[in-house]
């Protein structure tokens, strides 16, 4: 088994004059569920399309499972991909869709696909166009899983789902990850729901990697510190990722290997969402506004 699911070196992709992804270097381990997070337009879809071979890089290189994406039927067969909005042939019935999967793949576990569809009570004779969003997402996931892939790439699989369908989709996903040890990279512009299923985080922002690491160690190394309002730079608290100064207070997300010893600061633990929002809100400040607003309100309530 290859040690890396996805390896990118100085990877970049430009559309016309605009870089959608730039200087991206990543090494994602196998048998993990990787969350690829960032606001819309951050480069998540571009990265996933580069990883499936749908797109060719403008600069740098990308390898999945040690091979060039999309180069031959073998590597295509080892990767399952569910594109954004879960495209399926609308005029096909569910069973015709599965038959297409069987015809277009060398490895195809029809029993697995049929069992999944039947256990979800989706009628095989129903037309794809008449399925609900949740059902479509389950058919898409079923098709990706029936390939028995080593790597599963999912582009915004949760975006169009209501909370119940979202929960069902994630538990179906988790079940097969637990059964087969498949590596998953899953993109999302929402952070909720990800904490309980993902063990590795990549935050993309404006086409660049803002942070990349195991979630457990990210949670250990980040702290939310608050204290009286500071005007200058913050010393002795570690690397400041993001700070908010109100009239009375300064609140900051910091990255540090050791404890924060300065008694002027009140130190708190952070959750995944705060880390993500901190990285998205930092420095050049062009992150999506709603995310920033959530973060501010959360941190102020917490302090």
């Amino acid at each position: 088994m290859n040690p890396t699911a996805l390896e990118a070196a100085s990877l970049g992709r430009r559309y016309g004059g605009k870089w959608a992804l730039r200087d991206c270097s990543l090494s994602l381990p196998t048998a993990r569920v990787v969350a690829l997070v960032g606001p819309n337009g951050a480069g998540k879809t571009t990265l996933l399309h580069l990883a499936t071979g749908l797109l060719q890089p403008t600069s740098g290189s990308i390898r999945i499972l040690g091979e060039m994406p999309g180069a031959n039927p073998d590597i295509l067969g080892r990767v399952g991909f569910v594109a954004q909005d879960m495209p399926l042939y609308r005029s096909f019935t569910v069973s015709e869709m599965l038959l297409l999967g069987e015809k277009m793949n060398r490895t195809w576990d029809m029993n697995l696909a049929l069992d999944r569809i039947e256990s979800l009570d989706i009628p095989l004779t129903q037309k794809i166009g008449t399925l609900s969003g949740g059902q479509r997402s389950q058919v898409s996931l079923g098709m990706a899983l029936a390939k028995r892939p080593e790597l599963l790439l999912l582009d915004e699989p949760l975006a169009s789902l209501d909370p119940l369908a979202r929960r069902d989709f994630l538990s179906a996903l988790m079940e097969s990850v637990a059964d087969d040890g498949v590596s998953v990279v899953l993109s999302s512009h929402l952070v909720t729901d990800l904490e309980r299923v993902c063990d590795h985080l990549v935050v993309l922002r404006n086409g660049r990697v803002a942070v990349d690491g195991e979630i457990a160690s990210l949670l250990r190394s980040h702290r939310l510190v608050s204290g009286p309002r500071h005007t200058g730079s913050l010393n002795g608290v570690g690397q400041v990722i993001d700070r908010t100064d109100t009239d009375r207070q300064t609140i900051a997300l910091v990255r540090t290997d050791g404890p924060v010893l300065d008694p002027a600061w009140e130190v708190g633990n952070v959750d995944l969402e705060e880390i993500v929002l901190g990285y998205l809100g930092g420095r050049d400040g062009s992150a999506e506004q709603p995310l920033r607003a959530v973060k501010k309100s959360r941190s102020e309530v917490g302090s």
Partner: protein
Amino acid sequence: MIWVTWRQHRAQALATLIGLAAIGIFSLITGPRIVAAFRELHACTVVPGQDCSLLQDSFDQRFNGLQFVIPLYMVIPLLLGVFLGAPLIAREVEQGTHRLAWTQSVTRDRWALSKIGLVFGFGLAALALFAWTVTVWSGPLVDASDSRFGFGSFDLRGIAPIAYGVFALALGTAAGALIRKTLPAMAVTLGGFVVVRVFVEVFLRPRYLAAQTVSYPFLQESPRAGLGDWIIRSNIVDPTGRFVSPDGGIRVDPQALGQACPGFPRAAGLDKEQVGKCLSQLGVHTIDTFQPGNRYWLFQGIESAIFLLLAAGLVVFAIWLIRRRIY
């Protein structure tokens, strides 16, 4: 890929087959009557010197009504391009399903080649059947009118309609891959096809080879009558080679003729023989510019080659777009 392509395009395939069946049934119903009438006419015309004009008139009158099929048959190659070619790639990209197709275990090249190969193969077979049916069915009609090169005859018979259809399919496929939206791709296919067809028909076809000319006395039958020539122009000239009238035609005026030819019977009105005698006394000639009838298959070949080469270029362009520009 065969099943996948079939499943995706079976509605169009079915519609094509229904259309072909309709044309076939229509030809079977009307065909035998045309053949019988033509046999009667032919029995007359093979006898030299026999006047068959009455028979010819009744034949023409009887089957003139069938000309309504000309515009219908003329658009059939275009229909293939619009309804089979244009959505081929465009609908996939429009609905995002190309991302599903290209991430199964079939490479993009194989996907494109199978899809294009199968649809074009089907189109080719359908067009060949169509062209053959029309060629056989209209054989007596064209023979009776001696105009194999005419509009609605050259374009609907032989191998040219097959080449038009392949071109229309390729144009639709390329337009779809370029525009990536089905409806605009259909519109571009329609417009592009009409422009290219008209351009070739009007400007190129008469010039595939240098035209020949033949000169003969006015109002006499051309020495090349019955050879199936394509008369591109017919001008009437005086002995010095100048046009008799500015447009190359002639105005027959009994007064003028009477003055020019002594002994022209003014009272008799315009007797064809007398007028002809007078005009040939004056040395008035008809000059026909024509393509000889024995160039028919050469012209069919050149015309088909033009459209097939354009089609090949468009398919290469479409595949290049699929490989490089669509994601």
